[in-house]
């Protein structure tokens, strides 16, 4: 009996073979995942397991300096995970359970960090709270050393808590208010309900938020580079090992060390937490959620959330302001010099290159993500879960590692039997000045989000609707184009927005791939920051955000967020 399921899958696969178009698309998707994601990761594994690599594991793991770096990384991840989850929880709680003013404002503030380069906040924090910061020094008169763990935790929690907030908010809204009512009905007070019902029900969400933040934090390269100071973490060490020491083997070994906790978290997330959360959130909520009226609790939480908002607004305000002044923190006269540099000057190449490459990668990533989602949800075939898993690795693996993987995998052309299958993508004389590799990385990093939103959107569509189309004589391509795609339009829109924002703001994955011919904004921002030209950096940031916002507008106009199935308002 053991073989029946496989047998069944083989049968289904044969059915797939009969539809040549489906088969070609599926093979392309598999090819993409293998080449763009698995091959680079495998290259790192191979390099680290080479004769040069293996001894390095022992050397690094027994060297107190490296042990310290590993500790630093784990501590940073844990702190950001805990504090970021707390802030996300706070924001979600305020939105769902409190009846207070400015909720819309808080929501928007929480969304801002998604579309800004991750180290914009770090730079801004230096200008505001650093040794000569306009707030720390200017107002309080202290020479605060923001470099190091404290500054990193501060900046990273504010940069990353959005995802936690959205996650937990979704879960809180899905919680059945009847549960609260039942508990109250049984004589529990609000605090007891919170402790014994709300928190346990949200535990999977809280755990998964913590893990997500943990991975984001240990994978982040931009913030530690700008704000780390002497506090070294694995990601920066990897960076130094490649850029400073030209030691790709050492970098590969460190990458594997960094990869272990990241992948562990990803696997736990995928196979354990997702299973629990399915059980805990049940069906449609009935009744209205009760709001909390205790004034101390209510206004206390409100004040805490507003304080976080204030911080975010301050930091982003400083970016916007700093872009228009001569030397932020030192000379405050108004100038358009920085914008001139970015838009017309030497900085403009990065702006153009980044926008063009992101624009190429975005639709491809969204389409690949949606197509994989389609196969994962709707088709039965051998290796379905592997395809899903492989595609998700694009984001589960830290960007730095993807970058090194690309260097290792594509520094020479890949030939099979004397025929070039994949040309040289990275380093000097790479095709298109390395642009192809960068586009591939952008796609790799963006596919997972499109895939997940595609999966959740598709699982809500009754397969009978697609079968009806087939029953009426349409083939799979026509059914996908005319029925499936319009119905998952919101997921496509989300995928596009995410892919573009991700591509424009990513640094860790492409920092090793830029060449003199191809300039990338995030990398330029980093250069400007490292050389203390904060004004230029801020101008870049502002323009980057503007480009992303314009792109969102364009996607909205082109794709929209309506499926056309929404209930129309009567009388219109």
């Amino acid at each position: 009996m053991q073989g029946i399921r496989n047998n069944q899958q083989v049968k289904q696969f044969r059915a797939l073979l009969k539809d040549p178009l489906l088969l070609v698309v599926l093979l392309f998707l598999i090819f993409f995942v293998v080449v763009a994601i698995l091959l680079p990761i495998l290259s790192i594994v191979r390099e680290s397991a080479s004769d040069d690599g293996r001894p390095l594991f022992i050397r690094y793991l027994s060297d107190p300096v490296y042990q310290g770096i590993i500790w630093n990384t784990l501590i940073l991840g844990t702190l950001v995970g805990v504090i970021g989850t707390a802030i996300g929880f706070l924001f979600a709680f305020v939105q769902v359970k409190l009846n207070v003013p400015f909720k819309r404002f808080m929501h928007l503030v929480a969304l801002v960090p998604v579309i800004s380069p991750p180290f914009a906040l770090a730079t801004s924090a230096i200008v505001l709270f650093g040794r000569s910061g306009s707030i720390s020094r200017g107002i309080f008169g202290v020479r605060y050393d923001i470099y190091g763990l404290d500054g990193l935790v501060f900046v990273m929690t504010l940069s990353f808590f959005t995802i936690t907030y959205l996650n937990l908010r979704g879960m809180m809204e899905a919680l059945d208010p009847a549960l609260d009512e039942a508990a109250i009905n049984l004589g529990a007070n609000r605090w007891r309900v919170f402790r014994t019902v709300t928190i346990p029900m949200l535990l999977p969400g809280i755990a998964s938020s913590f893990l997500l933040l943990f991975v984001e934090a240990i994978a982040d390269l931009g913030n530690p580079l700008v704000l780390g100071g002497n506090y070294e973490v694995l990601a920066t060490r990897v960076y130094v090992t490649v850029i400073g020491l030209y030691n790709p083997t050492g970098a590969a070994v460190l990458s594997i060390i960094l990869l272990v906790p990241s992948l562990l978290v990803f696997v736990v997330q995928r196979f354990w937490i997702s299973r629990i959360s399915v059980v805990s959130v049940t069906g449609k909520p009935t009744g209205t959620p009760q709001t909390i009226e205790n004034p101390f609790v209510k206004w206390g939480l409100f004040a805490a959330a507003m304080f976080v908002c204030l911080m975010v607004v301050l930091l982003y305000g400083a970016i916007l302001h700093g872009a228009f002044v001569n030397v932020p923190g030192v000379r405050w006269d108004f100038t358009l010099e920085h914008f001139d540099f970015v838009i017309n000057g030497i900085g403009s190449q990065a702006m153009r290159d980044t926008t063009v490459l992101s624009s190429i990668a975005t639709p491809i990533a969204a389409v690949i993500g949606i197509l994989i989602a389609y196969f994962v949800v709707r088709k039965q075939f051998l290796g379905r879960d592997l395809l899903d898993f492989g595609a998700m690795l694009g984001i589960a693996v830290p960007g730095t590692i993807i970058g090194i993987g690309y260097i290792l995998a594509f520094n020479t052309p890949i030939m099979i039997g004397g025929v070039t299958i994949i040309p040289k993508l990275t380093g000097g004389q790479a095709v298109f000045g390395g642009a192809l590799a960068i586009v591939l990385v952008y796609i790799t990093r963006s596919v997972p989000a499109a895939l997940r939103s595609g999966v959740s959107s598709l699982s809500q569509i009754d397969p009978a609707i697609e079968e009806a189309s087939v029953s009426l004589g349409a083939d799979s391509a026509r059914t996908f184009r005319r029925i499936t795609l319009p119905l998952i339009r919101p997921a496509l829109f989300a995928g596009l927005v995410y892919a573009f924002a991700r591509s424009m703001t990513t640094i860790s994955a492409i920092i090793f791939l830029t060449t003199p011919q191809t300039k990338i904004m995030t990398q330029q921002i980093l250069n400007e920051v490292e050389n203390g030209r904060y004004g230029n950096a801020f101008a870049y940031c502002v323009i980057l955000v503007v480009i992303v916002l314009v792109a969102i507008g364009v996607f909205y106009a082109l794709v929209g967020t309506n499926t056309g199935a929404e209930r129309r308002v009567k009388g219109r």
Partner: protein
Amino acid sequence: MEEQSKQVLLKLVNIVKEFPDRSGRGAVRAVDEVSLDIYDGEFLTLLGPSGCGKTTTLRLIAGFEMPNQGKISLEEKDITQQPPNKRDMALVFQNYALFPHMSVFDNVAYGLQSQKMPRAQIREKVNSSLNTMGLGGLGDRRPNQLSGGQQQRVALARSLVMEPRILLFDEPLSNLDAKLRVQMRSEIHRLQRSLGITSIYVTHDQVEAMALSDRIVVMNKGKIEQMGTPEEIYHYPKTRFVADFIGRANFLPATAKAVTNGQVSLSLLGKQIETRAPFEMAAGTEVTAMLRPEALLLRKDASLPQAIIEQAMYLGTEIEYLINLDGTTITIADNDPRRQHMFAEGETIGIDFIPEAVHLLPE
């Protein structure tokens, strides 16, 4: 149906369909060696309890599932491996499966557009189909702006406009309320008879099946229990399962006394009767006599076997009695409108029956 018009249109031979079970190690046989001929122009219903494999059989015919074994042919052409969009059939879904993002008009036009039919012709066909279905003027609406009955009509129009060789229905009326269901039932009946389109209909509602069908196929646990006209199935069920599933039935044990020329004589409820022997039997064979509730009568007559009325329910069209005859509960339906009075619960009464209505089943 006359003999010569009985052209086999669709043929199922020894169809087996297995699904992996929950553990993924074993298999569930949803359809178990089903063979079936469907004649041109007939209305055939697959009837059976939940989970008996009706939907799976229909989906195998439509091509949405591939059989593990067996062959399906349409007009003597093997279509077992043909993809569903190439089969000249249209399926009407239980939950309608209308395209929610398209207008009613576009829903109905969808299949014709796949065929690359000229626009003007599509417009004409769709409009006439909408009018036939009483949906004239609703072409611009979205499905979610229609009532359940209207949505069902759109689903029907969408399939009918394709003029398919075979129309397939999977419990199309089960989402409608009782009144609407009866109304749509007669509409489907009228349409099918006037268009003469071959139809295969899945339901677990025996009244619906009898009202609509030329032939009924009763399924149980993936197998065909019995095939026949509604009358055959109702009056001459082959098994207890079929007798029970199609309406109410009383089962009384009896022993064959003498068998001659396919006729058997036996004694039942104090009467000597002679009836057809529907299967091989000899004198002394234990059999079960089936009597429908309306074939039994209650009478104040001391010469008849006496029983006690346990429950009497007035249902408007009939009075239903549950009576206790020597420890067995028997259902009796009295639908004689001339009878004005009801026997009271607890009353002792004589039982009579119509001998011609007795049908024998294997023990």
